[in-house]
């Protein structure tokens, strides 16, 4: 509430921006997105300097505080966010002289490290389950800050096709449940009129290691396929989705690299991988029919469109699969940075707490410029506002760490 008032005060100062902020709550097309981003008031930045707001992707420098603490911060978790977070950490070290050590041990291990307070922050591709929050209750309430977006694509190995294959949710579920077994199946033919599909057998490749990628993909299948829920299961209902499931068909491989190798090595192979990986390695992937009935190619723009929800829940625990966005790609997910709200319970010095909060603040502002070049989605404006409120609620025994 107080944050809201502060925001509106700031908007009153920046009168011209206020107009775009009013229209910012509606999820309009991409050009409006950049306008809404700049509606974040300068007063929201922690420094007294009047830096321009942090428009992700723009070169405009935002102000940041750069508390050094003892010069290091430790984090652990998601392998998905590792390339981005490593780049961010390097840039932050250059600017502020704080060494951020991020161990890409996997979301599950990262959550455990964070619960046991062996790291300053965790990073997870699935938001915390109620049971995980309860397990860390001794350290106080958690704050979950969405930092970036990714999408999962259905990649395949078929030669001689000019354009990407189109897939509906039913087709994807059918393939990964083992019900659609050849590439010229009726359902695939119906979705791809005029395409000469081969009679090659479909050879499914899935992840064998527990993975945030699997979590996003199975959550999508859970959302679109009742068959999937009954045969394979949705996993723990308080979590975003299952990271390890018993796949009815196909072979498992470890990591995006392993799955890609499995797809490439088999004529008729199909599997799910991170969009950044698919784009960088130039692998064919399917256009997927979204909730509005449009076939969407996974791009940074379509993922950003999917991530641009009209509202986000107050605790920032949300899913991005099968959203209402007309131009949004339907299989998308978020990575959260995990910290405790009252850092006096877990950290030794307030200085270190300041350093931690400053780093997180930087990742959701200036750090966002690192996202697009690495094929990660940047934060939309209305989510950034909520992220800011969340980061500002982090405190030291009740006293806010950010102004």
């Amino acid at each position, binding site marked *: 509430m107080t944050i809201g008032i502060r925001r509106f005060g700031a908007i009153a100062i920046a009168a011209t921006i206020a107009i775009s902020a009013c229209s910012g709550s509606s999820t309009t097309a991409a050009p409006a997105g950049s306008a809404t981003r700049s509606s974040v008031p300068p007063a929201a930045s922690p420094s007294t300097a009047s830096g321009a707001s942090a428009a992700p992707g723009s070169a405009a420098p935002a102000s940041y505080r750069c508390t050094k603490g003892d010069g290091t911060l430790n984090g652990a978790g998601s392998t998905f966010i590792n390339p981005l977070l490593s780049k961010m950490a390097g840039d932050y070290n250059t600017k502020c002289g704080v060494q951020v050590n991020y161990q890409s041990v996997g979301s599950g291990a990262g*959550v455990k490290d964070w619960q046991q307070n062996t790291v300053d922050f965790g990073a997870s591709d699935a938001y915390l389950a109620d049971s995980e929050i309860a397990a860390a209750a001794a350290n106080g309430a958690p704050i979950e800050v969405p930092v970036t977006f990714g999408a999962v694509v259905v990649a395949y190995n078929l030669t001689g096709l000019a354009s990407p294959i189109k897939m509906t949710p039913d087709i994807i579920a059918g393939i990964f449940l083992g019900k659609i077994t050849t590439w010229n199946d009726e359902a695939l033919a119906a979705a791809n009129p005029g395409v000469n599909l081969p009679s090659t057998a479909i050879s499914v490749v899935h992840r*064998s*290691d*527990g993975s945030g990628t699997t979590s996003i993909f*199975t959550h999508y299948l859970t959302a679109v396929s009742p068959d999937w829920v009954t045969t394979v*299961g949705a996993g723990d209902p308080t979590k975003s989705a299952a990271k390890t499931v*018993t*796949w009815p068909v196909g072979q498992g491989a470890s990591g995006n690299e392993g799955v890609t*190798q499995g797809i490439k090595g088999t004529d008729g192979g199909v599997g799910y991988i991170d969009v950044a990986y698919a784009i960088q390695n130039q692998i064919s992937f399917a256009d997927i029919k979204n909730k509005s009935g449009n076939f969407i190619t996974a791009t940074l723009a379509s993922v950003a469109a999917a991530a641009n929800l009209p509202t986000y829940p107050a605790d920032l625990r949300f899913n991005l699969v099968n959203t209402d966005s007309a131009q949004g790609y339907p299989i998308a997910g978020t990575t959260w940075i995990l910290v405790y709200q009252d850092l006096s319970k877990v950290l030794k010095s307030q200085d270190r707490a300041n350093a931690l909060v400053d780093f997180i603040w930087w990742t959701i502002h200036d750090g966002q410029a690192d996202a697009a070049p690495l094929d990660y989605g940047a934060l939309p404006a209305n989510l950034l506002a909520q992220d800011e409120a969340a980061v500002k609620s982090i405190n030291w025994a009740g006293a806010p760490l950010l102004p």
Partner: protein
Amino acid sequence: MTQSAHLAELGGLRRRRWTGDLIFRLILSALTLGITGVLGVMMIESFVSASPVYQKFGIIGFITGVTWAPSFTVYGAWAFIYGTLLTSLLALLIAVPISVLIALLLTELAPARLRGPLGIAVDLLAAVPSVVYGLWGLLVLVPALRPLEQAIAATLGRVIPFFGPPTPGSSYFAAGVILAVMIVPIVSAVTREVFASTPRLQREAVLALGGTRWDVARTVTLPIGRAGLLAAVVLGLGRAIGETIAVTLVIGNSDNIGRSIFSPGFTLASVIANEFNEATETLHPEALIALGTVLLVVSVIVNAAAIGIRNRFTGGARSGF
């Protein structure tokens, strides 16, 4: 005088030797007890950590359960026990005959000049890291085996489902082959030593009677080396059961029990390596720890059985263990 001085000196020596021996013995005992103690603590610790799984499914229920579904909180170990036993058995079936032939070649047939270099070449195979074997398996062996698997599945597989489809390439069969390649150097090295130590007199006797090299191998080397050969097999089996990373890269990593030898599956070691990092579902980490205990027990049982078989063959006392 001199004698008593001498005796005194001897006594001192004895005393020194005695205290020295005592300290030596204490240190060795502590080390030995420490190592076995670590094993004991490991077993107790893993049993306790996994106890919620045993409480829910029962020890027998867990071991014989055929379904492994973290999303439904159902855990059964049988698919992985099956995978471990099948791939290890396959590896032995392929590796043992090859190893014996290599050992015979290097001890009986190869020209003396070549024995050293050839032996070293085979031994060097044991020094290749298992992840390198795994990558070679994934990138070279699996694509090479796929046509063979498909051919067998299309012919023999029509009659016997165990050799039938699906044939994605990565499979129990591919894992068995890669394990065979990995254990050949160990089995052949030990076998070679055993064969090389057969009494020269008996070999020469066979040759003097007009026997061929094959007669030497058949009547002298193989019967005398039998105990050592079985010991080599036990060593190879131990490595095959516990091998993780190479298997994981070529076995196809499926939680289901493959109907065919050409279908993807999991071994105990590879499922733990794959799933532990992100094991966040209810009871999932506990179930994986339980699999570790099962792996330990399976190794002990298989090795004990192998030693028992060897002792029965040989009357027991011929080699050290």
